[in-house]
Every structure is written in C-alpha cells, then in structure tokens.
C-alpha cells in the first residue's frame, strides 16, 4: 500500500439519493437496528468511522486506487451485439465478472477492510454461503495483512470444497457451523456470536447490503461504483441513459450497487430479479420481496421468509449466492414505494439464461447473474417492441460462472 492523496485535491462528493436512510438507518418503514446492546457501541463506532471515511478524500482516493490497481476496476460496459439482435433491443452488460476474484463482491470487502485498517483493528470475520464472500474476504485480508476467520454452514463446507480450499490457501480460518439449518443464515448468526465476544479488536465484514445500520448503507457505498461507472460509461458512449437497468437480488448488494446511481433518474426503469427456486407456488424459493411479509432478521426490519410465528423459513435457490431468507432494507423500501420492480425468476429460467449467454456471447455467467439476464431479456423484448432497437437495457453481470460448473454439469448433463 503506497497510495497517498494529492494535496489540494478536491473532496469527492458521494451524491445522496432521494431513497437513502435517515440518521437511524431507516429507509421508510425498513432497516433500523435490532441488535443486542452489547454490539451497539461497536455499530456506533463503525457508523462514525464509515461516515468520516466517506467524507475523507484520502480514504476515497485510496479505495479507488486499490480497486483500480488490484481489483481491475472500473469494469467494462460491454454491448452484447448478438444478444441484442436476438431480443430487438440494445443489451449492455456491466462486466463485474472481470473483477479480481470474479465478482462485484471484491468492492465491498476492499472497502470494509480498508476501513478496518483505518479503525486500527487487526482481525476480520465474515460469513459465507457458497464461499464467494468468504473468498473475497480472505483475499482482502491477505492484501491488508489482517487475520481472517470465515463462518460457513457445515452443509455448505461440504458442498463447496473448492472455495474452502481457496480460503485456506489465502490464509483464512474456516469454521463450519452446525447449528440451525447449517447454511448461510446460521453462519451469520455464528459470526455475530463471535463478534459479540471479540468486538474490541475485530471487524465484521458483512457480505451484503443487509443487517443492522450502518451495514446496508455502508455496503452500498462500497458497491455503488458499479452504477456510478455504468451510468458514466453509458452516457459517454451513447449520450443517453438506459431505459431500464436490471440486477439479481439475494441480499441485494450488487443490485443496490447498480441502482443507487440511477434512483433519481426518473425515466430509468429499475428491475430486481429474485430467486424463484422451483416456482413461487411450490414454496421452495427465496423471493423474499415478492412474498412480501415484513419482519426483523439479522438486525433489520425488512421482508423475511417466515412462518406464522415469525420463525425464519429456509430459502431455496439453485444459486447459493441468492439463497437467503431476508433482503437488504433499501430494496424493501424501493419495492414498497414503487421505485423498483422485483420479480421472481425460477431455477429453470436462470439456467436457460446461463446457457443462452454462454452460447450467444461466449460469457459464462454466475447463476446469480443469470437470474438478471433471464428477467432483463423479457423486459428488453417488451421495450424493443415498444421503442425499437435503440431501446437500451443495462444488466449487471455480477459474477462469472466458473464456480457454478458442477451445478451446470448436473443440470445440463454435460
């Protein structure tokens, strides 16, 4: 790390949107902070450090420099011509799959790890489902020389041996979690238990724009480069904004990272595509917003998959990165006020889109991102029919599909 800010450099302004949280972390009816008192002091400290960092040109400059030199950003905006011809509208792909570690997630962990170092903490913990956020966290920890422990459901540790090996190679400790359903939500619970006992020297690198204040806003601020870059790239190349933008939504960090820059562009339609699993009617899905039942999970009021008594229901998706029974509170707010539209995409629709993008453009997307492709192509066909081939849909290609090849082999019988 040799970056320093240029003296006299103008303070970068992070423009607010009309859909940001208030001081208490409330996005309208959603968000807030439902947490044990023991962690409130740490969350207050983190809030202050994050706000302070966001107003500090040196921090912003360091973050941008690391993202550029180490992370390979800004990611390109690619016009998918063959796909565009197929649907009759212009399809733009924001190539987050080309970032270091193969997904948008590196932005968030580099931001949080840089903040951790600024706060003088030496240890980071993280939760992970399929292992992508765990690998990203282990990567950032190695980069900054921080001690790293990753909590991962025991079921996932078995299913994702390759990612476990990657984390080990990167120097992280992986702790299998046996409690509850032994998946992502339980890994979050266990990471929080660690944090209660270690908060004086440990930072929790939360993997998505959910959880208690300030995580939904802070993670969004670190991921928002996706949309800031894409908006500028689109304007520069086409002299106009897209008609619609689209992303997949599990916890929702890649989606909010794309959406934030466009929220006040009233003419840009915003779509989030949720994991519909086997189909909404089967009950085996993770389409939290579509289900529309609000509650408190992992520290925030948001939409939650839950039974009549408020017990969390296990979610289902072919995509491990979207398999979460809650969703970031800003998405809940955007859905409720109607600024963004959230629709479910089934496993089968996503896998079809995975194959389509692979064969049409030579890009194998993550199954997560394939949900966005599937939904956005439908939107594009409609827009193309209404407005002609200049109609433009910008899709966040949040990650690459290498990690999903075993699932693909099984699904397509390869």
């Amino acid at each position, binding site marked *: 790390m040799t970056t320093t800010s240029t003296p006299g450099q103008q303070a970068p302004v992070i423009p607010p949107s009309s859909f940001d949280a208030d001081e208490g972390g409330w996005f309208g009816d959603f968000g807030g902070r*439902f*947490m*044990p*008192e023991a962690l409130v*002091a740490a969350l207050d400290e983190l809030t202050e450090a994050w706000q302070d960092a966001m107003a500090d040109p040196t921090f912003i400059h360091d973050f941008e420099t690391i993202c550029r030199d180490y992370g390979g950003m800004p990611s390109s905006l690619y016009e998918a011509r063959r796909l565009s011809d197929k649907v009759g509208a212009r399809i733009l792909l924001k190539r987050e799959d080309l970032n270091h570690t193969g997904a948008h997630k590196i932005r968030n962990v580099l931001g949080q790890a840089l903040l951790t170092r600024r706060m003088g903490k030496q240890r980071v913990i993280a939760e992970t489902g399929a292992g992508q956020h765990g690998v990203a966290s282990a990567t950032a920890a190695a980069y900054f020389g921080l001690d790293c422990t990753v909590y991962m459901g025991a079921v996932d540790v078995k299913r994702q041996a390759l990612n476990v090996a990657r984390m080990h190679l990167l120097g992280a400790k992986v702790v299998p979690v046996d*409690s509850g359903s032994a998946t992502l939500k339980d890994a979050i619970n266990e990471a929080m238990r660690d944090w209660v*006992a270690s908060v*004086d020297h440990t930072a929790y690198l939360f993997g998505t724009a959910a959880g208690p204040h300030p995580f939904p806003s802070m993670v969004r601020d670190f991921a928002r480069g996706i949309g800031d870059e894409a908006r500028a790239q689109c304007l520069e190349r086409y002299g106009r904004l897209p008609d619609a933008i689209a992303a997949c939504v599990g916890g929702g960090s890649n989606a909010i990272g794309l959406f934030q820059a466009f929220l006040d562009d009233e003419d840009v339609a915003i779509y989030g595509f949720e994991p519909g699993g086997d189909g909404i009617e089967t009950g085996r899905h993770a389409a939290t917003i579509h289900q529309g039942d609000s509650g408190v999970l992992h520290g925030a009021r948001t939409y939650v998959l839950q039974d009549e008594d*408020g*017990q969390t229901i296990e979610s289902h998706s072919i995509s491990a990165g979207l398999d979460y029974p809650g969703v970031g509170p800003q998405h809940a707010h955007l859905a409720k006020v109607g600024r963004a539209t959230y629709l479910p995409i089934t496993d089968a629709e996503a896998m079809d889109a995975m194959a389509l993008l692979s064969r049409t453009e030579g890009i194998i997307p993550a199954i997560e991102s394939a949900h966005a492709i599937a939904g956005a192509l439908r939107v594009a066909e409609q827009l193309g029919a209404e407005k002609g081939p200049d109609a433009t849909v910008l899709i966040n290609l949040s990650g690459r599909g290498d990690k999903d090849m075993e699932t693909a082999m099984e699904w397509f019988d390869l």
Partner: protein
Amino acid sequence: MSTAATTLTTSTAFEKTRAEGRAALIGYLPAGFPDVPGGIDALRCLVDSGCDIIEVGLPYSDPVMDGPTIQLAAQRALEGGVRTADVLRTVEAVAATGTPTVVMTYWNPVEHYGGRGGHAQSVTRFAADLAGAGGAGLITPDLTPDSAPEWIAAADEHGLDKIFLVAPSSTESRVAMTTAACRGFVYATAVMGVTGARTTTSDLAGPLVARTKATTDLPVCVGLGVSNGDQAAEVASYADGVIVGSAFVRALLDNDDRAAGLRALAALTEDLAVGCRRG
C-alpha cells in the same frame, strides 16, 4: 391496565428478597423443551426448588445471543413443533404458582404474533395475551429501548415489565437511557459474549452493576455464565439478582431420564439459592 390487576410483576419478588437481605434467583428455561408439558414440569421444579422469578424462553430459529447449550434446547423445542401459543400456555401454568414469570424472546416472534399484519398491531396483541396469561413482562435481548416504541407503548398499556439489557460496552449515556426505559429490573450482561456456563465469573460484571446502579433505583440482575452456588454467591455480593439459564438447560440435556433431569434441576437450584443467600 386491562388484566394487570391480577398480574404478578417482578417487583413483588424483589420486595421479598430485599426484606430477607438477599439476592433473587432468576431461572431460565426455554418453553417446549423437552416438550411442552415437560418444559412446564421443569419450570415448576425451578419454582419449587427456590427460584424467585422465572424466565420462559421463546424458542427462535436465529438466536444470535445464545451459546450452543441454549441453541440446542431451542432447536429441539422447535423441531418438536412448539408454537408461540405454547409459550404463553407455559407462562400461564408457571405464573399460576404465584411466582412472577417473564418471557425472554428475540424480537421477530413478537412483531409477527398472530401472523401477517401490522407489526404494531402484533405487538399490542402479544402484550395483551401475555398479560392475560399472567405474565409479568418481557426480556428483549435484541431490542434496545431506542428501537422499541411499539413495545414500550404496549407494555405501558398492560402494566408489563420492560427488561432491557446493559452490557460492559454500553456507554454511560446508553446505560442511563436504558435504565430509564426499564420497569421491573435491569438485566446486566456480565460478559461480552453469548449465553453459556463459564468456569469463572466475569470481572466486568461488578463495575457494570455499579455504573448501572448509579443511574437507577431498579434492581440490577446479572446474567451470562453462572453455573454453581459459589459463583451465585459472588454475584449476589454486588447484584440484586442472579440469572441462570444454560446450567439449567445443561442439567436437562445431560439426563435422558426425565425424573433424573428434574432431580438434577432441583439440586442445582437449591445450591444456587443457597449461594444467593450467602452473597
């Protein structure tokens, strides 16, 4: 106040223990473990063996403040099909003994009581039904007063105790804000960590109790980690109450035979109760 005239608040228990010059023993077990009737038997055993106040745990799918022992019991209770209505039934059965009975619960089951609908409406309904069952109030481990306007309003309406937590990491202003919002007693978490029996008591507890008492006349009770009479005596020397949970759960988990479990529970309670008198 609707049914509060018949409700036993925790203050009645502290009047008694203060008159006797000792700390109160507060016992926790989750409802529905090993099953609903078995849970009621175990909680009544705590009453019969010397607990002054009972905490009935509401088993929840995502208990972030609990260590492995209570997690396991809660998970078994949920696998056994326990419902929120069963928790209230348990409260009713225990409160009928005349011992003040509170519920300890994570927030979402309260906010979602009675299924879909407005959360404020659910909270009001829960408070009414808890009071109706003879419950004395709620301990809310993941709800702080600044996030609790609905609960504070509902508790006030039904005369229920609002027991919030203070922690070693709480700032002075948060301790003051929290105790000002409490009714009944204040729950001081002795360690920075989750629930579970520990071999040594925490050196963070004493200073926290002193800081808390500087802001309130309410009884201050200490939880997290106490598992035997000697530890209870130590905590009783500076706190108004000793809260024990995981050690009771462990006594039940370690005994497959229910009668043996109840005997172990009774012996442990008696040891702890003696400790509370020594402190």
